[in-house]
């Protein structure tokens, strides 16, 4: 979850998110270098008394500043594509869960073995217990086992929504009439928060997602209590 005065991403809770953090560091470093070069050039231009009005052509520098950005873009594109394909690797999920978006709550369906479905509404500010996070807590969290690949199928029963958990690097649109698949693999247990990421009406900001990741044996115990 986010914390006060946070400057970057939340810490990764899955391998894909770790890769995304490395990629972001790499790309941001390139962006900072280009920006500081441009800023330095602008400051040079603004603080000189010299004038020069008769440059006609500059073939050499034009070649350099065409080829070099092309190379830089390739250096950004290659890791990006690598992660893109990594996200689509076959990983043999142990569990399939369907997430349905509604106005304005989520429904989680654990239907591999039995038919288990429950709604997840945001806890309103008046009902929070002291210390809970405003606009982020829900009444029924999505409970999942750690260190297992889980297939999540996301769809919607009415309008567009988007199911997001930033610390796992997940954002999947919930489109009515369509099943979008994403893979979830959490490396460590804990509570992971996210918020609906596609405008869906009046309470779009008030339908959060909370994942509770617990070790497998506790997950199995919980399942037995739910059935």
């Amino acid at each position, binding site marked *: *979850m986010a*914390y006060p005065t*946070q400057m970057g991403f*939340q*810490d*990764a809770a899955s391998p894909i998110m770790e890769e995304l953090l490395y990629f972001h560091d790499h790309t941001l470093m390139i962006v900072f270098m280009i920006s500081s070069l441009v800023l330095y050039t602008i400051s040079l231009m603004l603080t000189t008394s010299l*004038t020069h*009005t008769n440059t006609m052509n500059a073939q050499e520098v034009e070649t350099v500043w065409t080829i070099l950005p092309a190379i830089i873009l390739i250096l950004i594109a290659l890791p990006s594509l690598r992660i893109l394909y990594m996200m689509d690797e076959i990983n043999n999920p142990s569990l399939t869960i369907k997430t349905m978006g509604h106005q304005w709550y989520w429904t989680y369906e654990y239907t591999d073995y039995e038919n288990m479905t429950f709604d997840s509404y945001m806890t309103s*500010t008046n009902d*929070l217990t*002291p*210390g*809970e*996070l*405003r606009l982020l807590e829900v009444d029924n969290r999505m409970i999942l086992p750690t260190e297992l690949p889980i297939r999540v199928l996301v769809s919607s029963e009415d309008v567009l929504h988007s199911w997001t958990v930033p*610390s796992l690097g997940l954002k999947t649109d919930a489109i009515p009439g369509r099943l979008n698949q994403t893979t979830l693999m959490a490396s*460590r247990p*804990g*509570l992971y928060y996210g918020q609906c990421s596609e405008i869906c009406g009046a309470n779009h900001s008030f339908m959060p997602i909370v994942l509770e990741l617990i070790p497998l044996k506790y997950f199995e115990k919980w399942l037995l209590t739910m059935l």
Partner: protein
Amino acid sequence: MLSRAAWSLVLRRGGLGTRGKHSLEGTAPSERKMPPYTNYYAQRSYPMPDEPFCTELNAEQRALKEKEKGSWTQLSHAEKVALYRLQFHETFAEMNRRSNEWKTVMGCVFFFFGFTALLIWWQRVYMFPEKPITLTDEWRAQQLQRTLDMKANPVQGLASHWDYEKQQWKK
């Protein structure tokens, strides 16, 4: 700056939309313009325009221009200055002089900062609703405790700065 140089080129050609003159005497008299709309435009990046600043010379000035055609060592200092002033509007020092415009600009900027601050203050007093209970110090302390208990962001984020054994922030 660049637009003035371009405009000076336009003026030299007689401006946009001028028709060809049919006068037998030539076009110079009919292009007479009143100051400051002469054909003279100089700026720091274009300091030596083709046209002189003063084109209408009285008899004394014409005599001086004739004297200029001879040896320049015979010109007195005052004559050289007079010739300079005929050719150019301002010296480099005059052209590059600073101004006090920045004081006016900064004054207006600060004034509008203050005015905006007054608007925001009025908004806070008369328009904003009650703050939610979660922003009180007590709730925020309990929230922080809960965040640390669930070890949120333990790698480089919040919980990574908390020493769980000593129950205090890491130094």
